[in-house]
C-alpha cells in the first residue's frame, strides 16, 4: 500500500491529476479525523485537512518516496493542528452532532447514553496536554504502530510510550466513574 501511495505521488508530480485525487480520496477522511480529535471542531478540522492537502499538492515534486505518504500527511496535519491550537485559546466547542439520526432502529435511550459517553470521552481527551492528546489520537483512533506514530510526531518511541502512559493515566482518572 505504501508503495502504491508513493507511486501515486510520483504520478501526481508528473502532472497526473487523477493520481492526486486518488490519494485525496484515500486519506482525506483520516486527515480530517486526526484534526477533529485534536481540535474538537469539525469545521476547523476540515479546514486543516484541506490546507494539508493543498500544501502537499504544491510540494508534490519535492516528495521523497523514502518516507511513507501517510506519515508525511500526518506530519503536515499535526503541524497545522499545533499551529491552530496556539492561535485558539480554547480547543473544544460544538455539541456532538446528529451523525446517527437516520438510524431509526436504534433505541433512543441507548443512543442518548452513547452520545453522553462520547461527549465525556471527547471532553476528557480535549483536556489532555497537546502531545498526550496527539499520542492518543494516533494510537487509539488512527491505530498506528508506536513506531509510525513516533515518526509522525517527530519523537522517539520511548518518548511516545511515556506520553501514552501519562495520557492513559490521566484519562483513567478523568473517566473513572464511567469505566464500569
Amino acid at each position, binding site marked *: 500500500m505504501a508503495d502504491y501511495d508513493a507511486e501515486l505521488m510520483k504520478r501526481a508530480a508528473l502532472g497526473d491529476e487523477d493520481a492526486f485525487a486518488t490519494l485525496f480520496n484515500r486519506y482525506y*477522511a483520516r486527515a480530517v479525523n486526526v484534526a477533529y480529535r485534536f481540535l474538537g471542531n469539525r469545521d476547523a478540522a476540515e479546514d486543516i485537512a484541506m490546507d494539508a*492537502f493543498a500544501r502537499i499538492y504544491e510540494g508534490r515534486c519535492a516528495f521523497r518516496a523514502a518516507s511513507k505518504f501517510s506519515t508525511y500527511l500526518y506530519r503536515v496535519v499535526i503541524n497545522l493542528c499545533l499551529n491552530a491550537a496556539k492561535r485558539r485559546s480554547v480547543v473544544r466547542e460544538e455539541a456532538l452532532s446528529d451523525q446517527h439520526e437516520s438510524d431509526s432502529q436504534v433505541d433512543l435511550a441507548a443512543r442518548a447514553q452513547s452520545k453522553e*459517553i462520547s461527549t465525556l470521552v471527547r471532553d476528557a481527551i480535549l483536556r489532555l496536554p497537546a502531545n498526550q492528546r496527539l499520542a492518543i489520537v494516533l494510537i487509539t483512533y488512527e491505530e498506528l504502530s508506536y513506531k509510525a506514530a513516533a515518526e509522525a510526531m517527530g519523537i522517539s518511541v520511548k518518548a511516545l510510550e511515556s506520553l501514552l502512559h501519562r495520557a492513559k493515566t490521566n484519562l483513567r482518572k478523568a473517566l473513572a466513574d464511567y469505566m464500569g
Partner: protein
Amino acid sequence: MNCKKAERLIVRYVDGELSSPLVDRLEVHLSACSPCRLKYEEFKRLSKLIAQWEPTRPALGYEALRERIRQRERVRSISALPVPRWAAAILSLISIGIGFTAGIRSERPVRPHTASVNQVASIIGLSQHDDLVEAAILTGFRNVISEKSGAKR
C-alpha cells in the same frame, strides 16, 4: 518482574505493542499479582471506553481542494509582485512619513488675529510708553467684544 516494571508494560500490552518474550513475562506477573491485574483490566476498559468517540464524516470533496489550491495560487500571485520586500518596506515607511507630515501641517491651528498692545495704543492715540497699561486693558476689552460678537453670529 516487579510491579513497577509491569505497570510500565501494561499500556504497551493493551496496545498490542509488546514483543512476545515480554508478553510471556508480563502474563506470568499478572496471573500472580492482583493489583497489577486490576490495573490491566482498567486500562483495557479505558481503551474500550475511549473508542466510543465516533469519527466525523467530512463534508467536502476533491473539488473543494481544487478551489483551495486556486485560492492559494491567487494569494501567492498577489504577494509575488516584482518589488523586493526591502523596497516595499522602505516605500511603505516613506508613504507613512509623508502622510503623517501632511496630516500635522493641515491640522496646525490657525491663530485668530488680535491686535497687540502697541497697535491699540497707536490707534487710540496713546503714547507707547505712558499708557501701555491702559492700552492693554483696552485690548482685553476688544478681545472680549470680538468673542461675544462672534458668538452672536
